[in-house]
């Protein structure tokens, strides 16, 4: 690990100002000289491995603004301060009641210890766990642009089948983000160019030709809050995560589902898929295929087919298409059967 300067700014504007003075407008946040750290459960790991090498770390845990640590429930929805820990949000009564899909996605992620450290904003910005990205001696277009991708012809069981490109097939491994994208969440960000709201679906970038450009954020922008709109029918929602072991493993496939039902007929469906895509993945074609239909094995199956119509398998991950479909079917039926 390289030596670095460590600072603890106490308000966001100061943190932004420091970041601005050490980064330029075109810097990718993940490659900038100055980077923000909150829970540190991802960045500190990558610094030790030599994957991330910021010269300056700006620790956000001393920021004074109390709203950064609050969960506020209003008629408009729910607002998570950026520094709320995953464990706090997972255990929050209103989150569990009103947005079970959010509580599930958090509860099924990582381990208890990590959930107590990791911040919500840091969680959505976590970087891929691709084995070839994590270890610096492999060719990796995301870590070292233009160097190639060893995963493409390597061991790619964990890799993505949706949103991939010829440059990168690394999976976005997060769970919480699937709930957020399904529920049309909005990100609040503060930077040197002021504050702005970013639809969650616009936050992450598909790899395309430039897999090292991971998000829409500037290097001096800080997420201050995550807002989820009010959605009374989101009480009928869940997150289903399929993995090799019972706990503490990344999804091989997952589905975030929320259903607005009229009897057994779907008024509206929200669907996001995890473990199978390069970014948090909203399955809009699947949602549309269900609209106005009676939700049963057949319509759920058709929605799953629609969700994976564009999937691109590699040697070891082809099973994720079938698994992803079944995961979605099961999630849809289990959501339908929820007693709300």
């Amino acid at each position, binding site marked *: 690990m390289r030596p670095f300067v460590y600072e603890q700014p106490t308000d966001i504007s100061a943190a932004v100002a420091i970041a601005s003075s050490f980064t330029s407008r075109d810097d990718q946040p993940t490659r900038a000289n100055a980077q923000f750290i909150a829970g540190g459960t991802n960045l500190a790991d990558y610094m030790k491995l030599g994957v991330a090498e910021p010269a300056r770390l700006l620790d956000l845990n001393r920021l004074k603004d109390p709203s950064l640590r609050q969960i506020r429930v209003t008629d408009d929805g729910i607002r998570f301060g950026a520094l709320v820990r995953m464990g706090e949000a997972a255990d929050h009564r209103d989150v569990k009641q009103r947005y079970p899909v959010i509580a599930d996605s958090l509860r099924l992620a990582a381990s208890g210890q990590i959930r107590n450290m990791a911040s919500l904003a840091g969680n959505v910005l976590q970087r891929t766990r691709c*084995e070839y990205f994590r270890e610096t*001696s492999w060719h990796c277009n995301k870590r070292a642009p233009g160097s190639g991708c060893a995963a493409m012809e*390597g*061991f790619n069981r964990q890799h993505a089948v949706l949103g991939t490109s010829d440059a990168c097939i690394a999976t976005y491994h997060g769970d919480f983000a699937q709930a957020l994208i399904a529920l049309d969440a909005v990100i609040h960000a503060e930077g040197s160019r002021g504050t702005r709201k970013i639809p969650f679906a616009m936050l992450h970038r598909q790899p395309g030709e430039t897999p090292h450009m991971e998000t829409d954020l500037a290097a001096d922008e800080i997420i201050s809050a995550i807002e989820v709109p009010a959605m009374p029918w989101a009480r009928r929602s869940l997150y289903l995560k399929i993995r090799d*072991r019972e706990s*503490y493993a990344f999804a*091989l496939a997952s589905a975030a589902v929320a259903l607005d039902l009229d009897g057994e007929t779907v008024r509206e469906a929200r669907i996001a898929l995890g473990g199978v895509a390069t970014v948090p993945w909203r399955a809009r074609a699947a949602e549309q295929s269900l609209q106005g239909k009676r939700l049963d094995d057949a319509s759920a199956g058709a929605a799953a087919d629609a969700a994976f119509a564009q999937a691109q398998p590699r040697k070891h991950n082809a*099973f994720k298409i079938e698994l992803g479909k079944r*995961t979605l079917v*099961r999630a849809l039926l289990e959501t339908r059967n929820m007693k709300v």
Partner: protein
Amino acid sequence: MDAAAPRPKENQGEPLPRIDARLKVTGQAHYPADLPTANIAYGALATGTIARGKVTKLHLDDAREVPGLLDIVTYGAMDKVDKPKFGNVGATSIAPLHDRTIFHDGQIIALAVAETFEAAEEAAQLIRADYEEETPSASFDSPGTKTIPAAGKSPLFKEDVKAGDFDAAYASAAVKIDARYSTPTQHHNPIELFSTTAYWQGDQLIVHEPSQNVTGWKVELARQLRIDPANVRIVSPFIGGAFGSKGPMTPRTAIVAVAARRLGRPVRCVTSRMQAFGTQTYRAETRHRIRIGAGKDGRITAFAHEGWEVTSRPDAYVVGGTSATGRMYDYGSVLTHVSLVQADRNTPGYMRSPPETPYVYALENAMDEMAVALGMDPVEFRRINEPKKEPIGKKPFSSRSLIQCYDQAAEAFGWAKREAKVGAMRDGDWLVGMGCATAIYPTAVAPCAARVRLTADGDVRVQCGSHEIGTGVRTVAGQMASERLGVGIDRVSVEMGDSALPPAPVSGGSISTASVCSVVLKACDAIRTKLYAAATAESGPLAGSHNEELDLADGKIVAKGGASARVEDILKTMQVGAIEEYAEFAPKGAPPEALKKLYSGMPEFHGGEQDEDAVKYAFGAEFVEVRINRYTKEIRVPRLVGAFAAGRIMNTRTARSQLMGGMIWGIGQALHEATEVDRHYARYVNRDLQDYLVPVNADVKDLQVILVPEVDHAVNPAGVKGLGELGNVGTAAAVASAVYHATGKRIRDLPIRIEQLLV
């Protein structure tokens, strides 16, 4: 008593808590890298990034710029020391800094030494190599591998066992199967990382390193460094998980010792989790072909087991589990053959039940297939084929309680409620399956020495150069002394894990409890003899009593009639403050030079299949229930029951803990563990615990261990059969059988994963 402390049955010792439990849970147990050492410098390894070729140039300039850098040990630095050897004590003959040839991924290319751990790490990361690369062969089926017969390539695997005319018997069998199985690459991943701390005091070298073989390492390290073994001391008081990985010494030890000598300062090198995959040993992937033929009555007439194992180019590491599978049942005829496949990989090594884990997995999965082919209950199929004598040498078993294990485990598991029909059992959306398999492990024992001292105050000290790798051997050695000398366990201290102590064999092959307890028993009995002689002397308080009428209890010598004498008073009459006995134990039938070899660090194992009088094994039967979601096919194991018979159980608590840990490992072997090898680069891909999965607490629900009473005086004086490597044998096959029962899909390649059940 709770589940963790089973009530002792016949021939089973008390479930005493571990004598070092409090130290461990309060952080007072010092593992080798924790042992304080003044003025220490830190070393970090730089490792190569190709699997085959040559290092043409090393770039060290950037590393030398790192503030605090003290030294870089690399090519040339080892020229005046001898190369490591592959064998019992040495992990590999690959001498990474003697030779610029690259034999495998992650080979050591340098050791950076600095004032701080961070500086050493940074410098090591900055060391770059230029290579002359060649296309490597990764594993089975890779172009460029070489396949050779294994027999005779290792002293531990002399021949392919066989009996009768397999070809004829198989050809004429009424029911037969012919199937292929495989097991993946696995790494031990003990939670305690690998480390070496070395320092010199004049010409004395002291090494703190987690080791399962301090005496062997002392001798081997001295040979490499060309110094007198008397000047080397290996210290390893606690080991945080070993599983075989800390048995053979790796080349790092001598490199760190040389670094400490160059610097004139202690050097500590802790290997990273990732680097351990290439610098330590591992369980190589195996393949199997099994053919079984039987009559319609279920009696097996023909058994053939062919195995293939990956090894490195220079070293012929072989496990050869056919020697156990070939003796498991009453086969009629047996044919076996083991081959080695040489690839561009680091040398594999011992990993918990090295031969049995892969080979018995294949056999037991095949046995279940055969039971299905015969339309027979798998337990009954095994009962029918229970042998009176082992089929290869026609020797008896010194004891064999396999059927008792099956009966007790089946009863506790509720096997009778299993519906035989495949796919018949369901719980909502979950398919339910039940399966079983046999566990077997050879019972061996080796020469061992120990010193035991009893003081007038009633304190006992046991000293033995064995190793507490988490098995509880320190506790059971103390328990043996406590029982034989009649003092409470709280008065007993046990010193282990230091090559300055009386030598013990490697803590491998599940021999430690048998070997250590046998010698402690001998030393204690020598103390008893002295005490008795004094007590029964003409002027003694128990004059006229015979030794066999005496016992030691509560600090007293007690005669049959009730008369007694305090040990303290006897010592007074002897005019001594303590009695200390140094004992050496050699197994029955050991050659005259057996004890000399103990001191040179190369004692030989006895028992298993090698003895003249009988073959010696511990057995068990394991039953599992699996649940598989009917949509998404994830596999969970909510219930396991294992019954095991292993002679004298010294301590039911530590025995259960070993067997339970083994069965949990078995869940991992069945469903989780695999090191992935990149086929193009012959490099390990998932080199950390993020992607190398082992079971977590949530994967282990209801697990029951039954200790079946068994008495066997033939195995060793303590009557103990090692069980540390018994519990994880069989579990994976039982899971595979249960998966078949639930789904009708026979999975033959481990680990069993969702994708195999989706198709």
